[in-house]
């Protein structure tokens, strides 16, 4: 198991969009801690420290709040859409002997056999939900796709997870499939458009028209 990073947290008295924005301007990230049937606490942590911990793919952290250390799981992160850092974080209080339910990313390895026959490997599921002890959370679940031919698929039930980890997502869900590329479809799309279709106008939903006619009649 990796070393657990300790972040120094400060209590946050103000909540809401504007207050959170002001917190971010100071280089800190607004966060929330919840779980273990205790009241949720609004806190802030240093943006750089949190970013560094996330880059190391740390799922467990120690939060030092008012001199008291809490072991937490990073339950959710909100990122800025222009990659300007983390906007908000959710921390879930955990005990090391308590089973937790988390999402683990699925990583594809290899090149599918079906790609040589004009197929394309599609990963339909980015994350699988698992149940395990906090210390056993895998960094990712690897799926080897090298043996997949055209039309073959890997389902959640086929995933190989380490001992002590139980998959919670339904076993019938598709994870990876090798589908035929849409050659036939694009050929029909790129064909010359018929004149009628090119000048076609969308159908106006009749409700408005009918009402107008009724109004005219009443006048």
């Amino acid at each position, binding site marked *: 198991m990796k070393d657990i990073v300790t972040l120094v947290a400060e209590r946050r008295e103000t909540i809401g969009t504007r207050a959170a924005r002001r917190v971010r301007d100071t280089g800190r990230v607004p966060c929330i801690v919840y779980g273990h049937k205790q009241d949720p606490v609004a806190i802030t942590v240093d943006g750089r420290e949190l970013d560094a911990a996330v880059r190391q793919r740390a799922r467990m952290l120690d939060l030092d709040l008012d001199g008291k250390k809490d072991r937490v799981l990073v339950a959710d992160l909100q990122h800025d859409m222009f990659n300007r850092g983390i906007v908000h974080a959710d921390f879930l209080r955990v005990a090391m002997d308590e089973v937790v339910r988390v999402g683990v990313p699925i990583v594809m390895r290899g090149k599918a056999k079906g790609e040589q026959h004009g197929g394309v490997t*599609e990963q339909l599921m980015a994350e699988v939900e698992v149940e395990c002890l906090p210390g056993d959370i895998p960094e990712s679940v690897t799926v080897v796709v090298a043996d997949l031919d055209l039309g073959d698929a890997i389902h959640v039930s086929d995933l190989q997870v380490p001992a002590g980890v139980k998959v919670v997502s339904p076993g019938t869900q598709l994870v990876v499939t090798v589908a035929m590329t849409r050659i036939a479809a694009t050929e029909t799309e790129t064909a010359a458009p018929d004149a009628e279709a090119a000048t076609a*106008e969308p159908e*106006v939903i009749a409700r408005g028209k009918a009402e107008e006619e009724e109004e005219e009649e009443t006048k």
Partner: protein
Amino acid sequence: MAMMPKRIKFRKSQRGRIRGNATRGNFVAFGEYGLQAVEAGWIRATQIEAGRVSATHHMHREGKLWIRIFPHKPISKKPLEVRMGKGKGEPEFYVASVKPGQVLYEVAGVSEDMAKETLARISHKMPIKTRFVTRRHGL
């Protein structure tokens, strides 16, 4: 053929303002790589189609392409040499109203270099500034 709505409630729409950033459709959700709008603007149906054609051509029909925007907004225009007044012009074309952060296209099933080249070609067809983005795995 350029995209347009099948059914609409009103034939003509007002211009409107594009304010704020995209709060939906602002991350790569289907493919591995994407093209994200950095500016706000209208993207014409013909420009969306031009991007699609250039992408499928460059990818030699390998991989998969997703178009994440749709031209819902009708834009009307008065004919040439017509005096002002006499009502609003007729709808000429359709546009997608795009806010900064919106992911316009996504690709998968190709290498990162290929995806970069493909999305760069699409970006040349776009009337707004865009950037290359990759999917975020995990948290």
